[in-house]
């Protein structure tokens, strides 16, 4: 069994590691995120999550997935500030038992539906965090770890929000995820044409990505 990562590299100094903790997300976390970070994120046109309202998103995701007989796992990543205390720095929402995107190998997987990292400048300026963590890999790892521990082999998938443009595609490719070719079919229950923005990890990719973070657990 793997745990979630408990440290992540600093965004500014990759050799420096920042303590992080993962908790289950509740309405208060969503309210805090919307109030404290939402206004800054909304002004940044480059952010795919600039208009996400977590206070509404959170109950909606649970309800919609329950209607589909699936479960959501909403999680918060906290990072240690200079004061020694922890501040919310990342949010994600994972769907469990989602159809695996590679239809050649029908199976269940985990689907990373929404993920968001706090604006680093706000963490530095308002929350005394000199070294905001780089959370991209950590957020992907959380879906992989849940999938592995649940017997789904680490298989996971995600759809890069169109609002994130080409830079988001490049980011997921850089993280080591497989890009699902645009011509590839999607599982029937995904109910959508493939727009070329789906990524996934198979068992081997998942294990390699998870193993790379093992020293941080």
């Amino acid at each position, binding site marked *: 069994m793997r745990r979630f990562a408990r440290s992540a590299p600093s965004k500014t100094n990759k050799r420096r590691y920042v303590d992080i903790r993962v908790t289950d997300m509740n309405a208060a976390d969503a*309210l805090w995120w919307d109030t404290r970070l939402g206004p800054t994120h909304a002004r940044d046109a480059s952010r795919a*999550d600039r208009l*996400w309202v977590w206070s509404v998103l959170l109950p909606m995701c649970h309800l919609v997935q329950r209607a589909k007989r699936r479960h959501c*796992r909403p999680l918060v990543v906290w990072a240690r500030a200079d004061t020694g205390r922890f501040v919310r720095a990342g949010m994600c929402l994972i769907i469990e038992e989602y159809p695996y995107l590679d239809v050649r190998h029908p199976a269940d997987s985990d689907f990373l539906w929404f993920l968001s990292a706090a604006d680093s400048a706000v963490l530095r300026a308002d929350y005394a965090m000199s070294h905001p963590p780089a959370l991209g890999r950590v957020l992907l790892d959380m879906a992989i770890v849940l999938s592995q*521990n649940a017997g789904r082999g680490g298989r996971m998938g995600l759809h890069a929000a169109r609002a994130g443009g080409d830079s988001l595609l490049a980011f997921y490719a850089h993280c080591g995820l497989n890009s699902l070719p645009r011509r590839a079919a999607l599982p029937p229950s995904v109910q959508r044409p493939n727009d070329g923005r789906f990524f996934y990890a198979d068992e081997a990719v998942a294990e390699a990505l998870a193993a790379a973070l093992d020293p941080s657990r």
Partner: protein
Amino acid sequence: MLLDAKAPATLGAVVEAVARLSTLSEAKILELVSAGKLQDVFPFQPAGDPLLPADSKADEELVEASALPLRAAQRATIVSASLPNAAAAKRRAARTKAPSRKIKSLLKK
């Protein structure tokens, strides 16, 4: 899942919205949310306690999430904690003084 009857969205409207949204793919919902249209398709306004939680917590105050599959009861707790009123009610309950022995004995009767 419990919905607050006093919340701005009626239960019927929420159920209707969920039924409609559950016919859409996750990628389509992500698109709607990213376009700022979530409030249009899901008429839910958090009507809970506007009290913001603390900006930071000490390590020992954080309850780390389990990376193992959850039991049904744990899932139910996570779902109910996603509703503002449930979270607010929990905070209010924590702030409320525990009932005295006399009240407890009356409740037992």
